[in-house]
């Protein structure tokens, strides 16, 4: 465990990556224009990034790729609920309910 001053140094270094990445092109201003083709390609970044964070969590169970796990099942429920109803809380409630039911109820 990192403690004391070094912990705050770690936070400061992490903060630098936050402003450094988010500000990279915004702070450069006019000097940092990207070619239009690259800008068009970058429209795909958010979808690719969010999915790259979600899918490993759903598909990898105990270090192995396996769709037969409670998180994947809960993920399918979240997908179905979010596509079917507009209520913003429902995916959270039903997704967590399925995960907890499988983990606790069925001991998976």
């Amino acid at each position, binding site marked *: 465990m990192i403690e004391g001053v070094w912990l705050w140094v770690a936070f400061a270094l992490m903060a630098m990556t936050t402003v450094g990445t988010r*500000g990279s092109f915004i702070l450069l201003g006019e000097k940092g224009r990207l070619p239009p083709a690259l800008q068009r390609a970058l429209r795909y970044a958010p979808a690719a990034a969010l999915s790259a964070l979600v*899918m*490993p969590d759903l598909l990898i169970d105990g270090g192995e790729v396996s769709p037969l796990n409670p998180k994947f099942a809960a993920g399918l429920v979240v997908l179905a609920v979010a596509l079917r109803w507009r209520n913003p809380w429902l995916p959270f409630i039903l997704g967590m309910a399925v995960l907890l039911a499988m983990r606790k109820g069925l001991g998976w």
Partner: protein
Amino acid sequence: MESAFRRGAREGLRDFLPISVGLVPWAMVTGIAMRSIGLTELESLGMNLLVYAGTAQLGALPLIAAGAPLWLIMLTALALNLRFVIFSAAIAPVFHDSSFARRLASSYLLVDGVFAVGVDKLLKAEDPHWRWGYYIAPSAFNWCVWQGCTALGIFGAEFVPRDWSLEFMVTIALMVMVLPMVRTRPMLVAALVGGLGAVLLRGLPLRLGVVAGIALGIAAGFAAEHWQQRGRRS
């Protein structure tokens, strides 16, 4: 007559509000997670104010708990924040006539949700006052919701049972955000390739698999758009 800034601010908030709901559990989970590895309330609040990047914070926590070297913690935070370089490049034209102070504030405040919801409208808008309102209002709102709900998690951490798998709410929040984006086929291709790429490349060191997956997804989406257009022409 309402000013352009206020019209922009109101429209930005209205567009962003549905997304911000997903932020609540995510922020609370992050607050609980920081306390659960042994950070004090003050350290957790400080990390949240300074870093202000949920994914990087969550990703760095295991390394902090394990006493990993500082450069590794920084590199991991950098890898998890790298997608913002891409967002920053895409949204930069919006700020080309803004002051340095505004650009600095906009940089610290740039988050996935506001970018995803607003980038198209921002790039099309002509009025700089409207643009500033449309960007800064939901961004500031996001900051307040994030800091407030994380504080709830930090101070409420003791009262939530440990075995509730609350960290899965993070994944649910990310799923709810990606769904409205993948309405077109190239976007769907980008998401599928990005996700599966990150799964298959998870063995890369320093969690670079996520970054590699994102790059693959972008390339695949762009290629799919290209083929779709060519198919229409012939």
